[in-house]
């Protein structure tokens, strides 16, 4: 009897079996999707307790020409000084995140994990790393100290030479003047 009523479902019936099931399954699937979404959101932490990403790296005149490994162990940053000024490279291989080592004699950074090689500018010359190493934002504080910010990074050719990532510094003249 139930079947006959279902088959002869009058047009004015408010909800048919089919649409009821559609709604039910739809609601159930929506509930599952929302639960999955909520769980996914849950595993993203909102507050991080990570060490600060800025540090003071001393005065520009403390650095002689070339790559300085003074801050590698404490801050994972190389301070590089060339003719025009100073920049800071984040000592993280762009391949899979190990810390490369500086080899003065070969004028290269070499990574111990998969053998990527970089120039003092941070450009890849051998090995699997896909991109140049990142430079950190660096500026001169009023106190005359350098402030390195590892949370602001750049590795694109022209952009990394911009003032945010480069402190122009007159080179030997000031160092000798002081001496």
């Amino acid at each position: 009897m139930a079947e006959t009523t279902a088959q002869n479902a009058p047009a004015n019936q408010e909800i048919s079996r089919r649409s009821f099931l559609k709604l039910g399954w739809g609601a159930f699937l929506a509930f599952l999707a929302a639960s999955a979404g909520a769980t996914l959101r849950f595993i993203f932490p909102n507050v991080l307790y990570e060490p600060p990403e800025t540090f003071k790296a001393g005065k520009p005149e403390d650095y002689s020409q070339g790559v300085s490994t003074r801050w590698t162990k404490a801050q994972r940053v190389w301070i590089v000084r060339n003719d025009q000024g100073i920049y800071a490279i984040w000592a993280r291989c762009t391949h899979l995140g190990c810390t490369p080592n500086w080899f003065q004699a070969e004028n290269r950074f070499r990574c111990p994990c998969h053998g990527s090689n970089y120039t003092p500018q941070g450009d890849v010359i051998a090995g699997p790393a896909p991109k140049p190493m990142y430079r950190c934002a660096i500026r001169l504080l009023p106190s005359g100290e350098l402030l390195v910010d590892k949370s602001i990074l750049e590795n694109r050719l022209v952009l990394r030479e911009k003032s945010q990532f480069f402190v122009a510094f007159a080179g030997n003249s000031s160092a000798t003047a002081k001496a």
Partner: protein
Amino acid sequence: MKLPFQLPPIPKPEEIKKKIIDSQIWRSMFRGGVWKDTPRDRAQHILGNVWLHLQPSRVRKHGLKWTYTFGLGGLSFFLFLILTVTGVLLMFYYRPAVDLAYRDMKDLEYAVSLGSFIRAMHRWSAHAMVLIVILHMIRVFLTGSYKSPREFNWIIGVVLLVLTLLLSFTGYLLPWDQLALWAVTVGTNMAAASPMLGAEGPFAMLGRSNDVRFVLLGGKAVGANTLLRFYVLHCVLVPLVAGALMIVHFWRVRKDTFSGPIIKPEELPHDKVDTWPHLIVREYVAALLCLIFVSGWSLLMKAPLEEMANPTVTPNPSKAPWYFTGLQELLVYFDPWIAGVVLPTLIMVGLMAIPFLDPDKQKGVGRYAFRERPAAMTYFLFGVGMWFSLIFIGSFLRGPNWDIYWPWESWLIHKAPPPHTWSLPIPAGLALVGIYFVVGMVLPKLSKPDFQWKSALRTGLLAMLGIVALSKICMHIGWDQMAWLFVFGYIYYVFGVLVPRKHLSTQDHIRYVTAMVLVLLMLGVLMKIGIRLGFHIKYILTIPQVNFNI
């Protein structure tokens, strides 16, 4: 001497045993009547026991031969049990916090009675389990035991292999030593190289603070959150999933029956023996030998523990445990998203596809039949061989700065830095990749499969020598490059042209295309390694704007 009273008669052991077994307590615990060792009793012993009834009450004789299974599946499970017990014990002394974890490891090593031994058992059993699971997979393949109706169980087996590796991987962050930190740094950076979902992969859409690496680490770098996450994954989530899948795996072995040579149905009852005691005894002996071996090994060899984790200094060289050095070596030749994401996925998918690509469903089931299944055997063993060669190179031939050092060379001697690499321009790269796959797909179909191996190999040899000589004259390649070109070219000719022509070209189109794509990809990995080593080509095809590099 005569006693003033009568001692009751001393009961015989048999009578005591009977009394205990007939007691209501015993009867309430164990089903079944008095043990008379009848076939019925033996069957009942298996069927009436919740643990043992995962096995059939009778098994085919040939499955008992230890050279058939080598007990590898059972041993994998037994090692899982050892790991569960030792793991729970270690948890009593271990706290997953950055400033405590390493100290707890030192306590376990030096202050806890038998702590060092339990930790060694846990570590070495984990290594053994990875090895045994891999060997189990190889055995199942070689005896054709994945064929219908066991295709699905093979797939579950592949997932279990991956979970075994994941268990090892999540486990080695926990000591919070240098290996831990840098292995997990590298592993999670591979995740960051995933297409779209990772911040550093091709077509990246997410940033450093919301991609998959961020979820895995619980932050932007390996830290306190990461340690806690990996602890939960290692001790709770992955073992639960693996345990659930193991139940399915065993249940399917039982339902699909043990693989064996195909015999007539009327012969089947005569081929079977009682599981109790024949199979059970063998299982216990294998487990006992395994336990003795692992305990002995753990008494002699302490579990390694490196210096405390230091997030700024990477040990030089930084080597993964042996089962990941193959992957580590692969990462040297490819962009991280290829070697770390695409290739592992393809390997898994390729393994799972094997039962469905196999053209002859019942050939070579139940025995090591190399001649009956030449193509399947060739490619499977080729892949396994490649993987273990990479493991060998990564483990034994790599030294500081990931340079090549022969095993007898001191790591103190200085090696010249590697030469500069270069990439092909985009049009050339596109053309090369296109030609490789199109020509590779067509070549085995061009002529009939009924050729003579000897003459084909000789023709190929001459052709290869011709190509090498021509390259020398036209492009002035070096002598070492001639050798690379010859070796890798010849390998391609044999495994990419001759074997498919003989064994794959006669299959239907879908199977041929799928199998050929997998074969070309596998050989392509080898070819790319050759191109990098011989010609210092970094990428064949590179589109830096979307981080797409091959």
